[in-house]
């Protein structure tokens, strides 16, 4: 996993609530056996008419050239539904490093963190403030300070991040390395349990 310290970028607004992982990456694209290449099918059925890449839906934000950047900003309950980690892989592969919302579904939040995609939980008013910004406006996310700032107005909010996960993100550590390092404790636990 790559270390993540700071993101300074414009953003892509998706003011829709309850975005489920079936929308982020429809099931028919889950046939791959690697983690790569999911970005081109990110939000596939919202992005294209009749599944045809030659027919982008003009009203969908990923097809609007004035919106770009490595931060996706979405309505509450983002990532609900299926546990497919492919959703996090799709966002990462497309180029998103963080998703900002007022509320995340649990499994998605874990999957995102396990791939170095930062879920940033903000208050509903702050979220609406971001939605009202211009497409050229930029956000700054500081992982160590756990803050998100609207550059133009310097308005800032603190966001929650588990201290353990923060250390992992800042250093690019992953949970599997950690668990392997705890092998003897796990073996002792097994012996005591029987």
């Amino acid at each position, binding site marked *: 996993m790559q270390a993540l310290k700071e993101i300074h970028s414009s953003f892509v607004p998706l*003011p*829709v*609530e*309850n975005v*489920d992982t*079936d*929308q982020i990456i*429809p*099931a*028919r694209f*889950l*046939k*791959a*056996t*690697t*983690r790569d290449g999911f970005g081109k099918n990110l939000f596939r*059925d919202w992005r294209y008419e*009749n*599944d045809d890449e030659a027919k982008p839906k003009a009203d969908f934000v990923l097809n609007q050239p004035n919106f770009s950047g490595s931060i996706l900003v979405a*309505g*509450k*309950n983002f990532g*609900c*539904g*299926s*546990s*497919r*980690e*492919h959703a*996090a892989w799709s966002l990462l592969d497309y180029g998103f490093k963080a998703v900002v919302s007022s*509320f995340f*579904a*649990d*499994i998605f939040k*874990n*999957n995102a963190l*396990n*791939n170095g995609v930062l879920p940033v939980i903000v208050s509903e008013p702050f979220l609406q403030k971001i939605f009202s910004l211009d497409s050229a406006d930029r956000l700054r996310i500081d992982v160590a300070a756990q803050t998100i700032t609207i550059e133009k107005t310097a308005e800032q909010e603190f966001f929650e991040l*588990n*201290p*353990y*996960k923060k250390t992992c993100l800042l250093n690019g550590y*992953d*949970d*599997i390395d*950690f*668990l*392997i390092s*705890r*092998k003897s*404790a*796990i073996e002792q*636990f*097994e012996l005591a*349990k029987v």
Partner: protein
Amino acid sequence: MGKTLFDKIWDSHVVEKIEDGPSVLYIDRHFIHEVTSPQAFKGIEKRGLSLFRPKQTIATADHNVPTLNQHLPIKDQLSKMQVDQLIENCEKHGVELYGLGHPYQGIVHVIGPELGITQPGMTIVCGDSHTSTHGAFGTIAFGIGTSEVEMVFASQCVLQTKPKTMRINIEGALQPGVVSKDIILYIIAKISASGATGYFVEYAGSTIRSLSMEARMTICNMSIEMGARGGMIAPDQVTYDYVKGRVYAPKGLEWEKRLSEWKELYSDADAVFDVELYIDASAIEPMITYGTNPGLGIPVQAKIPLVDAIANEGERKNVAQALRYMDLQSGASLLGMPIQHVFIGSCTNSRIEDLRLVANLVKGRKKHDSVKVMIVPGSQQVAKQVHVEGLDKIFTEAGFQIRQAGCSACLGMNEDKVPAGEYCISTSNRNFEGRQGAGARTLLASPLTAAAAAITGVVTDVRELIS
């Protein structure tokens, strides 16, 4: 202060707690399938590791398999590669696989309980959000992502933050025509698709106690649809009777030992939950969803809510978009609306009791000409039982198509899909946009309500067909 059922199981599975961080949670049973495991196998191979406890992992092929002609090679090459990869990975790493053609093959959340692999007091994970199904046995069971599948491969543990606890108490008798699917659709409609996010739910009360194991599984299955990390029910005599004698169930002295442990698995009288809800079972009617998340459900007799009357702006926009996608009108009734497909299957409602309910209703009746009806048993064993009991004859005479075990039309991944723009009454668990195929329109309901629509060709209150 007493302990909740959740606390008892959680505490006995924590290897250690990381300071200011999650806990290392030991996993007793790990189920895997073809879709969310290949990258995890690749991951441990890349690290030069073998599976830490391969005997605690059980595999099946369910999501990406055809439900017709399973004896033939899979036609779709990508699907075939994924299923072949599972076979190869399981062989290489010593994992028991109940793949296509095996008498134990089926939907992962159907076969685990049916084989007695799922037992009270266990921690169970699977790379599938409906792992919450196994909670019906008094287990901590939850869905995980592929990175976490890799963690279990490498260490038989996952890192988890302890969720908050919620108890939903359901008391009273159910009305005729109302089944466990209606209970859970009612709860989700009441608290919304995110109403239990951050919580682990225990279902309790006299109504729950009166339900069979299979009915309890339907309820726990859909816990994730209100955002819950999982759902559970304390084991009782119904649970022990169900587990006893199954392939993997403890036998002899081991059974006695386990049974005495299982009898300690309940929430203490003075246990405190973060949230408690109370539901009157007699108020529950047959339910159906009209929108594109499982929280957008109504009693089948009720009208779709008036969009303009929804106070919260985000929610109003959400419902308006759902109605556009579904091509339904605010304030309208669903009763009498023509449907084109009926899907009876999925990890929510594909067990023998579900199929018996359907068979009882359709016996001697025929499906409506304009409807295609698919019955997809949850496992090879369920399919076998359908035949033993002669239910297949009832279904065939009614004009229903019986297919082979798999996730089928629940998720729009394998061959079984609903065409764009058409309506399907489905006994599955998700009505998201495109869930049953791009552009497909899903109405979630119980097996009874689905069977009623199969006969009439329109959305029907099943109570009109039972007297």
